[in-house]
């Protein structure tokens, strides 16, 4: 049995740390080359549309279904808790604020990372392992512009749109439970909500959050695919990394953004 001395362990730990830094540096250069520099979006508008479809439209089902269910659960739980304070009428604003400020952007980003993010990583990793990316290079096309850039922009555009759709269907789902089932007065559900939800503070901040998340999740997904070991094991490891890193990043950024937006600085 090999005994790893303490020194050896420290060395390995430092090595791993340097690897992480190196990967971060690579991913920044990667992003820079893909988004900026000559070439714009390779493949033109048509490719972007194609990617928007596969990344955005295909995620609609899971987002809408999740949104409706989460909205309904929020209304249900909220009603339970609020009735002990005699404030059932506030359930509308509770559902709306929770969705707009937090759950809308965050849950959509997490679901997106799992569904679209892992699909992107797997697709690009597969292209790498079957040497399609090398072929593009040899034909003289920059794979960063032709393959990566459209997917990046598709993610940047799709996620905020999905987050808004999530919030909207969630609020409607909440209204079915609250008004049609639990008997909250329809007028008060909506008017209390309108009174307490501000466009600039709540809706806009939620949108800003989802734009930030879109940037981070898509960047991680696309880079992990591009950087992976071109073997099937490498691809599956990369897909796992995408989901884990993206999720952690979303939750961490959410805290920072919430503190900045809603904290009292």
């Amino acid at each position, binding site marked *: 049995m090999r005994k790893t001395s303490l020194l050896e362990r420290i060395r390995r730990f430092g090595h791993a740390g340097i690897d992480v830094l190196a990967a971060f540096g690579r991913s920044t250069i990667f992003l820079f080359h893909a988004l900026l520099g000559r070439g714009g979006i390779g493949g033109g508008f048509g490719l972007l549309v194609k990617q*928007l479809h596969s990344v955005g*439209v295909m995620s609609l089902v899971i987002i809408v279904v999740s949104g409706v269910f989460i909205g309904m659960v929020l209304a249900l739980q909220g009603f339970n808790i609020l009735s002990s304070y005699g404030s059932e009428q506030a359930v509308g604003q509770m559902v709306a604020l929770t969705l707009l400020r937090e759950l809308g952007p965050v849950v959509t980003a997490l679901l997106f990372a799992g569904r679209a993010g892992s699909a992107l990583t797997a697709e690009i990793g597969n292209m790498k392992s079957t040497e399609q990316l090398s072929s593009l290079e040899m034909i003289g096309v920059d794979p960063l512009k032709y393959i990566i850039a459209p997917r990046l922009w598709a993610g940047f555009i799709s996620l905020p749109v999905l987050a*808004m759709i999530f919030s909207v269907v969630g609020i409607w789902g909440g209204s079915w439970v609250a008004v049609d089932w639990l008997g909250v007065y329809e007028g008060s559900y909506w008017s209390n909500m*309108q009174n307490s939800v501000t466009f600039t503070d709540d*809706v806009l901040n939620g949108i800003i959050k989802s734009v930030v998340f879109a940037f981070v999740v898509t960047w991680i997904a696309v880079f992990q695919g591009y950087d992976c070991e071109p073997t099937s094991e490498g691809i599956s490891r990369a897909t796992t990394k995408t989901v884990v890193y993206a999720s952690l990043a979303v939750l961490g950024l959410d805290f920072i953004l919430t503190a900045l937006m809603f904290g009292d600085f």
Partner: protein
Amino acid sequence: MQNRTLEIGVGLFLLAGILALLLLALRVSGLSPSPSTETYKLYAYFDNIAGLTVRAKVTMAGVTIGKVTAIDLDRDSFTGRVTMQLEKRVDNLPTDSTASILTAGLLGEKYIGISVGGEETLLKEGGTIHDTQSSLVLEDLIGKFLLNTVSKDAK
């Protein structure tokens, strides 16, 4: 052709997004495309503004006629000075009107309610409402209640 369906799908997707945004703006947050009405500024001094925040409503007879734009401490009188912007069309407030800090509902937020006085002279831009009633602080209420009960028992 496959391309057409793709494009239509994406178009609908983006349309749904814009629709969602509009819904959120109008029905959920109650953003109303109201014409920016002209406003004028009024001040009011309170002993205690506890709980009142900037952007709180200013109402009269329950109708919203403006909002609070600033709250600061007046160094000389040690009272809280509240700055309000009121709609120009409500420009006939007598100088002895009262401004009170009220609570909306039991746990609700604070807002300012104005009740008219009887004077002939009217408040103008930059004017001050002198007759004010401060925010009801829970501790004072409890104190008052206890005092009452004690004095009743003492009798």
